[in-house]
Structure formats: C-alpha cells, structure tokens
C-alpha cells in the first residue's frame, strides 16, 4: 500500500560532488516490495516548488524502519532537499511503482547491473537482494567524471565492479556499453539516462533485460497521465504504460523508450 508519511531524517551527507545520501525513518519501509521502487518527496511546505520529486529507494533497513536514497542536487527541489538536516521531517509518498524482479535468476546465475549517474542508486538494493538469493552480481557503473563517482566500495562488497567516466578521470574512459560487451551474464538490469538505456536495449534486446525508466511526473500514482510511454506492440496506437505505476522498471520490449 502507498502511504503518505512525515518521515524523520536520520542522516544526510554529501558523498560525492553534489551527490547526497539521505536516510529517513519511515513506517512505509514495510510496504516496500522490490528494489527499484521509488518515493515521491515534497521538499518544502511552500508551493514553490510545487510538485513532489521522484527519488529511488537505494537501500532498505526494515529492522530499523529506515530507508536510504541517493540523489543529485540539480534544480530547485533537490537543492532545497540538500539543505535539510538530521531530525527534520520530510513529507514522503510511497513506495511507488514496480521494481526489478529478483526472481528472474536462480542461485549461481549471473546478473549484470548497469547504472549511469543517478541511475546507480536503485541497483544497490537490487545487488543486496540478488546476493542474498545466491546470484552472482557484476556491476558496471558509469559517471561523468571522478568527482561524481559514489558507492564504489559499497558495490565492491557484493561483486565485481567496473567504473567508467566519460572524461576518463577515473576508472575506464568511455561508456558503460564499452565494458558490457566483454561480460557474460544471464540477466541484465539497468537504470540511467535514456540514451544509455536505448543503447543497451538495442544491443541486448534478445537477452533477459530489465530497464528502469525516467519521466517527468505529476501525481506519481497513475492518475494524471503525465508519465506515459507507448507500448512496443502498438507504436502508433493508443496503448500505453505509466512509468510511475506500471514501471518504472519494464522488461525490454514492453515499452518504446
């Protein structure tokens, strides 16, 4: 069930340049079903900014009723969010959407998790859950530049981790796709900027592939039709999926990216 809850901030810190890790205490952790789900945050009581901001859940601690998010300070909303400190309250709606299916793999199989920039965070909880199931996990994480890299150590704890940067200032210079092509896997899970998703879908559409999409949102719950995308079978027709409530994770070929 989706809850709207005033959640207490347990901690917030800048873990890379403009990248913040935010942990809150929330009863809604009990409703979280799968890695890749997201929440919709109202960053301020004022109506400027007006809309909630969708942010993925990056890890969950049900025992302590806490969950963590990682986000980039970009515009008005995330800048305000970055100013919030420990003990303050945050109006959160969630969990929202459908996450990555962890049951697609059996113990011993290999999952390839490919993240770009702020698409990396939801893969962290995914990795945790896959490992717990006995699945082998490989991570390929792409960033713009060295100062934007985060969570390398955390991912390394769970499996092989390759980092790429566009400018080559850290890890391998180039794009995640350059790395993927040399790797073996049974299932690919990915989240990141649309061009990256498109490139991956083009290359691996014949494989078991799950993509997490991004779209500008209004309600976040399926009511406003802001976030729709076309069904792949009916590209010029009226069939659609909503990223917020049918997604954000889709099986490759389900929707037109």
């Amino acid at each position, binding site marked *: *069930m*989706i809850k*709207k809850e005033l959640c207490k901030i347990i901690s917030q810190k800048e873990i890379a340049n403009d990248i913040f890790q935010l942990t809150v205490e929330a009863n809604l952790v009990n409703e979280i079903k799968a890695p890749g789900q997201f929440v919709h945050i*109202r960053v301020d009581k004022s*109506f*400027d*900014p*007006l*809309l*909630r901001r969708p942010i993925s859940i990056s890890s969950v601690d049900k025992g302590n009723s806490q969950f963590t998010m990682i986000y980039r300070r970009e515009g*008005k909303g995330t800048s305000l969010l970055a100013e919030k400190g420990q003990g303050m309250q945050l109006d959160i*709606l969630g969990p929202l959407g459908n996450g990555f299916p962890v049951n697609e793999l059996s113990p011993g199989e290999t999952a390839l998790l490919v993240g770009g920039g702020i698409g990396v965070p939801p893969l962290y909880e995914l990795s945790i859950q896959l490992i717990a199931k006995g699945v082998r996990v490989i991570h390929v994480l792409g960033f713009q530049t060295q100062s934007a890299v985060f969570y390398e150590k955390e991912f390394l704890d769970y499996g092989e981790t390759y980092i790429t940067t566009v400018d080559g200032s850290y890890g391998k210079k180039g794009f995640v796709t350059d790395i993927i092509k040399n790797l073996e896997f049974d299932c690919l899970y990915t989240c990141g900027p649309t061009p990256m998703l498109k490139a991956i879908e083009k290359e691996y559409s014949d494989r078991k592939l799950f993509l997490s999409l991004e*779209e*500008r*949102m*209004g*309600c*976040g*719950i*399926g*009511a*406003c*039709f*802001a*976030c*729709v*995308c*076309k069904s792949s079978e009916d590209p010029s*027709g*009226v069939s*659609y999926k909503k990223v917020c*409530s049918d997604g954000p994770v889709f099986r490759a070929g389900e929707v037109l990216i």
Partner: protein
Amino acid sequence: MSRLNIELPGLKLKNPIMPASGCFGFGKEYSQFYDLSKLGAIMIKATTVEPRFGNPTPRVAETSAGMLNAIGLQNPGLEKVISSELPWLSQFDVPIIANVAGSVEEDYIEVARSISKAPNVHALELNISCPNVKTGGIAFGTIPEVAQQLTRRVKEVSEVPVYVKLSPNVTNIVEMAKAVEAGGADGLTMINTLVGMRLDLKTGKPILANNTGGLSGPAIKPVALRMIYEVSQAVTIPVIGMGGIESAEDVIEFFYAGASAVAVGTANFVDPFVCPTIIDELPLLLNQLGYEHISECRGRSWKEHGELAYHRA
C-alpha cells in the same frame, strides 16, 4: 455534514468539494487513499469518442507555485468509459460529472448523448477550453457564438444538466459566460488552465514536447477568483470554481468570489488527501468565521449582507 451540503442543477452534494477533471483519473488511484464516497462529486477525466493517446512526453513542467501540463486529453474512449470506468465508480455514493471533449461539434454530441445515460453521471462538464489539443477545443472556448451553439446542441441530447467549462484565455470572460448561459447551460465551471510555457536552460527548447501547456495550481488562483467574481455577478446560473485551490481557506475565498461549489485539481498531486482534508477542515473554519452554512459565504464579496453571525454574538 449538513453545514456543507449544496444543491445544484442535477447535483445533490454532501459537500461542495470535488476533484477537478484530469487530476483524478477515473478515481481508482485515489481510492487507495480514502473512501471516494466522502467527496461531494467527482469530475472524471475528459472523454472523447475514440480512445486517445494524447501528446508526446514530457507532458508536465513545473513553474513557481504552478505546473504546466500538455496531456492532450489521453483517455480510453467513450465505450470503455461507459463499460468499465463508470460502472466501477458506481460502488461509491458520489455523483459523477462527466467531462466531455472533442474536436468537432459532432464529437461532443456523441459523447454527451451516450455518457449522460450512465446512471451515476449526474451532470456533464463541456470541456470547450482544453488548451492542449490542436483542433477544436480552444476555438470553442474563445468564440462566444461557437460556444453558445455547441451548448445548445449538447443540451438537446443530454439527459442530465450541462455545465460548460470556461477558458481563462479570453479577453472577455463575462461575454463567454453569458453566451453559454443563453445557449442553455445549467451551470459554469471555471477556470481551465492558462496557456503557458517553460524553456529548457540547456537546450533552449520548450520543456514540453507540445511546446505550450496549461498552467494550473496556486499561481493561477487570483485569476480564477477575479473571473468568478465577474462572471457570478453577470449570470444567474451557478459557478463551480477551480484554479489553485489547496485549502479550506481557499474554498471560502472562492465562495466569497461567487462560486457555489469548487473543484480541486493540481493540489491532489501535492497531497493525495487534500480533498478529504479540506472537507474535514471546512466546518471548523466556518465556526471560526461565524457562518452556520457554507452557502452563506457565496458571493459575499459583491452581495450586500447584514452583520456576520460572529458580530451578532
């Protein structure tokens, strides 16, 4: 609850609060949060004859205290709405106002004729003011004669009262209101969105794929209030007011301006509980302001009144 009930053509409202069309889908999503029977009414999403996908994304953009949308009337089409959405809604004790849209007059007539027969549809809302569809739509909402004729023809086929939804993107809103009143409208709903735009700082291009979109939210509240103030004095049919409402105080302000009921749109996205919260808070606010019934607030800005109740105390 008897301090909030309102009767309007076709509508016996428990309270004057209803979600605005397009901001509440067909109710399903919000039924996760509360019992929809709590609402005064529900204005469902615009329905057209054929299913529509609407505009390409991005379809929303944010503005200061507002948002732009260019959904483009996405909806499953008349048949599906009648066969599936409306029957689903009939489990709730709440009148439905069906928002009727189209590109040409015949579209409106076809939708109105069929949808007005649905048992839980108690009124129609003629959407002659959607700024996000290229043909029709806006033209109906900006030319008084065209709006009047459309109203008249829809009235001929509708089995329930017809409210006409006015566009704020006009020089003279009173003229539009009078035209549709003369066309036989049973009521008015206003305002629809103001046409607006945002540009992307990095690309220089419009943020919305549709270039322009409709501005809603608190930003437009003063424009809505002004137009309702002008129109409610000039016509004898009731006005359902909307535009930026997010609190019980806002509801009272719309009543003062001349509204007889209100709809809440964008605020549902900010707080899915906004409608029931307002409904719960209204009686307390009425107490504080010294009114017995919300109807006492209606048109107070332009009506002559005796002393307020709390002055008598």
